């Protein structure tokens, strides 16, 4: 049943792959790439990882022994044979030759790859055997995966389908498996932009790997490692910590390399398997062993181990440290190795023979050491070499495979924690079971089963120097008993893993009373689901903590929330299966002690060098790929590809005005729109460019707008950029209108370029307005439209200042304070930007405005204290300051003198205060003077004159002013008497009690007379 399902999946995979092949065909390199990738990925999905792996391992053995592997289809052999010789020539032959052969390889490879798929499906047999063997032990877990397993694959396929056309790379990356699935989700945000990372040495890798399909794995690691600190907390410390890591990594890598090589070595010898074949072999090996563990193990592993490793790595004192480090490094390095193979053997391999050297040289190196040792046998041969690394306390130097095995042993109990760790017996049994299921192993496995137990123990001890206490096992079981369904138990495991990890790290694992330990509350599985569907990795971290930046509410709307757990279980299955096989390998590895320690350092050195080379090489080579991938990834950006791709389509469709949302439910659309509001822009320039490029051609504003919106949507991770940071330049209009005159109309929609005037025309328009003789209303309207055009075109220069200054002056002249205030506040900003204008004049206006308008001492003080010394010397400003002094002291004589000598339009502002000042003055006079004051004096002092007091000479007593004054005084309730000479006198004593402030004649209900249209017309028409 499983086999069938898988068959189907594989077939589908193949189908899609062929599609890609067809579409991308012209480039054989790419072709190859794709195929390979798909190969690796299928192996991922297919729980037979072990199977496939076994296959790859077996192949050599089979070739050597050519006996046991009945279960494996001959196509594998065929494939191996097929590709190996050719690549052999690559190896042995000159570079030129390699080029030639490689191209053929590319062609031939396609077939073998497919055949290998079938082989996978075939290998279902052994796999299911193995799994059944384990089923007993992994009771609950095994069962779910089986039926559900096919689901994720199906899901991928579905989601993949729409994707296919976008790019093959994307696709392959996407296909790479559950891990990559989630990693595509996080990819765009997490590392392209996160500021913290660049400092770490990791990033180097990241960038290197990025272009590759398999970068996804790396990504994943990265993510899992850094996830909790997206906020950038990591940044600083990383470098130091990592550098330590790194050495280990490299070592590991080398080890790993050696090992794979060694394993292949026999094959090479006997079968003339070339390095290329090694690579091929490795690909499945890595992809299966490694990514599979990714898809599952990382979920639990990466986060939980990470801190420990980092904490313990430095001192290297803890037992667990090296291994965790090792594991980590293995994982990160697994990815590199993967990568390595890809860019170098697959892509550049053909293009650049140089790269192919890297594995090759290693291989040679390896051979050198391996060959002398093992002239007789193949698998024994393969074992000794790794054995070499193992002895040293199983720490850094232990062979990769060993480590993998170990780790699996460790983690297994936690993930499938039904199975208590320290039960070698069970494992042994399982082992033998699987061994039986796979006869290939029998010979090797059987005799060493005891040793295997040893390794198991060793693994444990590596982790925490000892077997877990029995009470802990009970505790785990108790905890698991709580769980009602597999989701819960999965989540439960995560938590338990954390607990145990923590206990281990702080050394309380043995001391703690596990029996008395309270059970943690069962986590909300829905939550966990969501998390899972986002990314398997951070589950353990974030299931409880919701504030992590990695978490986005969007996940709520992912359509396949149940997908992840299923995946995980599926991969658990893998895991179990692989576990057995790994154990075997372990044993094998463990057996004899090899002797290539001298070679190792060499290899290491070389390897390091090579890797560097590759990095740089691949960086350039991959940039292209990366761009493309990014662009596509942006669509895929966070996770759930299907919904996202849909979403993008929707968005574009939606905003370009089309309502064609045929296949989208209304509800979802609304949700998207809603969710978009909260999404933050993020700096992914690549995407930006991508979109820009896409839309640059169209002058259509809507398209641009779409861009911005899509941009804002696709940038959402990280939260480091706000919506305001959108590049609004792309939304700025360039006007084309040539009309000089334009009526002002408040915009209710995006401006239409055809109605917006460009700068030259605006300049003419300003001149026209300045020189025209029409009334203020017309000028105001024209100036407002000019201001609008400036604003939509984001023109901020001298012209802008001039426009605002002109408008402010016109407004002052007619006392249109609201308009003046608008202009003044804009001018303040413009001046602050350093754009020159009549700065002083408007500083003075500002000061006057504060004095006259608001009776706020604080405002006055602050605007006074802001004046520069230079400004204080300015005539207009000095005048304004003097006016202020006059006003605050109530010195009406001074005030009206200043009124008469006011520069610029200061008088216009002072006008606003004249009435008040006069009233104050008269009340003061009526109080102080006795018995009378001549009205002529009052008229002179209080600036009454014919119309425009400033134009009058001092002391001139013209009758107009006097009449005005009399009128004014009467209006304000003063009692006037004529003295003996017939001169009008203010009877101060009588007036002092009768003065009042009349209601302003032009008072209107809404408080602003200028808003009364009729009145305004009469006032402003000229």
């Amino acid at each position, binding site marked *: 049943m499983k086999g069938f399902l898988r068959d189907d999946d594989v077939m589908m995979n193949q189908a899609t792959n062929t599609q890609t092949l067809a579409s991308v065909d012209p480039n054989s390199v790419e072709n190859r790439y794709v195929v390979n990738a798909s190969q690796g990925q299928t192996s991922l999905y297919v729980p037979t990882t072990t199977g496939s792996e076994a296959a790859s391992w077996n192949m050599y053995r089979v070739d050597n022994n050519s006996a046991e592997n009945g279960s494996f289809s001959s196509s594998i052999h065929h494939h191996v044979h097929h590709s190996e010789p050719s690549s052999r020539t690559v190896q042995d032959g000159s570079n030129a030759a390699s080029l030639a052969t490689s191209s053929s390889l590319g062609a031939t490879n396609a077939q073998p790859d497919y055949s290998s798929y079938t082989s996978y499906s075939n290998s279902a047999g052994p796999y299911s055997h193995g799994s059944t063997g384990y089923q007993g032990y992994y009771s609950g877990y095994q069962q779910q995966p089986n039926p559900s397993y096919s689901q994720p694959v199906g899901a991928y396929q579905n989601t993949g389908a729409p994707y296919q056309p976008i790019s093959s790379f994307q696709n392959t990356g996407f296909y790479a498996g559950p891990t990559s699935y989630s990693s595509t989700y996080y990819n765009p945000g997490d590392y392209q932009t996160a500021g913290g990372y660049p400092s770490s040495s990791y990033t180097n890798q990241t960038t290197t790997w990025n272009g590759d399909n398999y970068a996804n794995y790396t990504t994943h690691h990265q993510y899992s490692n850094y996830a909790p600190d997206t906020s950038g907390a990591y940044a600083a410390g990383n470098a130091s910590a990592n550098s330590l890591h790194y050495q280990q990594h490299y070592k590991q890598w080398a080890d790993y390399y050696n090992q794979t090589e060694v394993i292949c070595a026999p094959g090479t010898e006997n079968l003339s398997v070339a390095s290329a074949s090694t690579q091929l072999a490795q690909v499945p090996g890595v992809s299966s062993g490694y990514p599979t563990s990714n898809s599952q193990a990382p979920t639990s592993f990466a986060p939980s181990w990470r801190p420990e490793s980092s904490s313990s790595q430095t001192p290297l004192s803890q037992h667990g440290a090296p291994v965790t480090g090792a594991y980590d490094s293995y994982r990160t390095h697994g990815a590199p190795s993967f990568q390595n193979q890809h860019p170098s053997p697959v892509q550049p391999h053909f293009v650049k023979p140089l790269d192919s050297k890297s594995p090759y040289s290693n291989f040679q190196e390896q051979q050198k050491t391996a060959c002398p040792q093992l002239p007789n046998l193949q698998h024994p041969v393969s074992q000794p070499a790794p054995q070499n690394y193992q002895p040293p306390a199983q720490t850094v130097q232990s062979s990769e495979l060993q480590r993998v095995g170990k780790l699996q042993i460790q983690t297994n109990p936690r993930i499938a924690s039904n199975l208590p760790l320290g039960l070698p017996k069970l494992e042994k049994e399982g082992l033998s079971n699987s061994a039986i299921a796979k006869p290939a192993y029998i010979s090797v496995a059987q005799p060493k089963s005891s040793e295997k137990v040893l390794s198991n123990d060793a693994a444990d001890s590596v982790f925490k120097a000892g077997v877990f206490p029995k009470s802990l096992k009970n505790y785990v079981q108790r905890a698991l008993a709580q769980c009602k369904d597999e989701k819960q138990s999965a989540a439960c495991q995560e938590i338990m893993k954390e607990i145990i990890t923590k206990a281990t790290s702080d050394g309380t694992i043995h001391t703690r009373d596990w029996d008395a330990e309270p059970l943690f509350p069962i986590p909300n599985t829905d939550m966990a689901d969501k998390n899972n569907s986002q990314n398997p990795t951070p589950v353990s971290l974030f299931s409880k903590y919701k504030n992590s930046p990695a978490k986005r509410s969007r996940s709520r709307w992912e359509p396949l929330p149940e997908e992840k757990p299923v995946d995980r279980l599926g991969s658990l299955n893998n895991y179990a299966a692989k576990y057995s096989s790994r154990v075997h390998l372990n044993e094998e590895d463990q057996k004899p002690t090899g002797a290539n320690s001298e070679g190792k350092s060499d290899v290491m050195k070389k390897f390091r060098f090579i890797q560097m080379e590759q990095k740089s090489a691949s960086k350039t080579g991959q940039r292209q790929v990366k761009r493309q991938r990014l662009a596509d990834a942006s669509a895929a950006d966070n996770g759930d590809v299907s919904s996202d791709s849909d979403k993008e389509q929707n968005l574009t469709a939606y905003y370009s005005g089309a309502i064609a949302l045929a296949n989208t439910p209304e509800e979802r659309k609304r949700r998207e729109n809603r969710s978009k509001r909260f999404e933050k822009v993020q700096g992914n320039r690549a995407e930006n460019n991508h979109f820009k490029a896409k839309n640059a051609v169209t002058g259509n504003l809507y398209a641009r707008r779409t861009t911005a919106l899509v941009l804002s949507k696709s940038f959402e991770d990280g939260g480091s950029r706000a919506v305001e940071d959108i590049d609004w330049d792309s939304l700025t209009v360039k006007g084309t209108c040539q009309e000089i005159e334009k009526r002002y109309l408040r915009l209710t929609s995006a401006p239409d370029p055809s109605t917006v005037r460009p700068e030259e025309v605006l300049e003419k328009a300003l001149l026209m307005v300045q020189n025209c003789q029409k009334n203020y209303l017309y000028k105001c309207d024209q100036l407002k439209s000019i201001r609008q055009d400036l604003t939509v075109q984001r023109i901020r220069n001298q012209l802008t200042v001039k426009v605002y200054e002109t408008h402010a002056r016109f407004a002052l002249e007619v006392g249109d304070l609201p308009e003046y205030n608008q202009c003044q506040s804009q001018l303040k900003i413009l001046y602050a930007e350093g754009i020159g204008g009549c700065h002083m004049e408007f500083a003075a206006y500002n000061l006057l405005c504060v004095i006259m308008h608001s009776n706020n001492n604080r405002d006055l003080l602050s605007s006074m204290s802001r004046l520069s010394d230079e400004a204080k010397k300015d005539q207009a400003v000095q005048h304004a300051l003097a006016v202020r002094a006059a006003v605050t002291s109530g010195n009406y004589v001074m005030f009206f003198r200043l009124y008469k000598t006011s520069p610029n339009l200061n008088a216009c502002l002072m006008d606003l205060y004249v009435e008040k000042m006069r009233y104050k003055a008269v009340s003061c006079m009526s109080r102080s*003077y006795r018995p009378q004051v001549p009205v002529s004096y009052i008229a002179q002092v209080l600036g009454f004159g014919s119309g425009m007091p400033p134009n009058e000479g001092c002391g001139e007593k013209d009758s107009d002013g006097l009449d005005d004054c009399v009128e004014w005084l009467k209006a304000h309730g003063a009692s006037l008497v004529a003295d003996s000479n017939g001169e009008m006198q203010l009877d101060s004593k009588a007036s002092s009690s009768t003065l009042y402030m009349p209601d302003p004649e032009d008072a209107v209900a809404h408080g602003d007379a200028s808003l009364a249209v009729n009145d305004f017309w009469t006032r402003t028409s000229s």
Partner: protein
Amino acid sequence: MAYPSMGEAHRRITDYLNNFSDAVSYQDVASLAQLFSFSSNSPPLLSVADALNFFQDANRLIKQSEKFSQYGEILAPLFRSLQSYRTGNLVDAYHAFEKFANAFIQEFRNWESAWALEALYVIAYEIRVLAERADRELASNGKSPEKLKGAGSFLMKVFGVLAGKGPKRVGALYVTCQLFKIYFKLGTVHLCRSVIRSIETARIFDFEEFPRRDKVTYMYYTGRLEVFNENFPAADHKLSYALTHCNPLREANIRMILKYLIPVKLSLGILPETSLLEKYNLLEYNNVVQALKRGDLRLLRHALQEHEDQFLRSGVYLVLEKLELQVYQRLVKKIYFIQKQKDPSKAHQLKLEVIVKALKWLEMDMDLDEVECIMTILIYKNLVKGYFAHKSKVVVLSKQDPFPKLNGKPVNS
């Protein structure tokens, strides 16, 4: 940043976490407050910050134990803030701190008693200081500084938590004072009004029950507000309260209070001893006081000009400027006394020319109209009793108490 070892870093962070959870569970507010006091730059805190920067995954440690993870919302941003603070990235530090503070008041709300008030004080203080520094950082990068504003709205939220009934109300005044500091710094003093209203109108809580230091700070700031409003009696009352209740050993505080109290007292006609000005280094007022004593308008104007920036910044410039009228009064009074010595019978009639001449001696070039205006104002403001006869240009002084003393009352306005 070399750090001894990963283990050491781990240990320090765990210690910190333990301290936190212990402090919370034992309600040990003193040690809790210490954990938040960034600006104290205490070595233990800095070492934790270093450890955090070294040890990248402190959040793991928080989550490892239920003991810590229940405070994860508080601790995680706190760690982030501490890290950023240590690395000098104050804007990030502020952001994280605000997140932390929000989580903390959430928790604080749930605590029945007010045991954690001191810790809340520290947070209120730290967030303000951090915001100020973050703003400085932003300003130096050419960005608009708005963190202090954000801190203000956060503290408003804290005020809301505290201002209700119950034991936590005691803390409201502290938060109010922090808010005052922010508003005064931002120049948005009008925002103080709502807080003040809530403090002063509350019947349920007597003002005197607040802690003394908060009362003094509160009175100082509200007194300053009254100075702005030129409500001198109220300003006098509040600032005097602050002066009499503040710690007499804190000379800096006393000086700050006197800086506003002296102009207020001056405008109420009460002059300080020179020794007081000397003791608290307030000599910028010395010439003002001398001018008032001598009726020397020139001296006053010079003094104002000399310290213009300072007075403008502290906001007493306008107050001091208004003393001009008192100086005129003093001058007229002096002329009156001289005339009285010469000819007591005509002393109450002051010719305008004489006053103009006197002003000319002081190098104040004013014409008759102006001086006449000033005389009317003096009469109008009741600084001089009498009337002005326009025809003869004579100030006719009242025979009884022609120059009434202010005696603590403000000049009529």
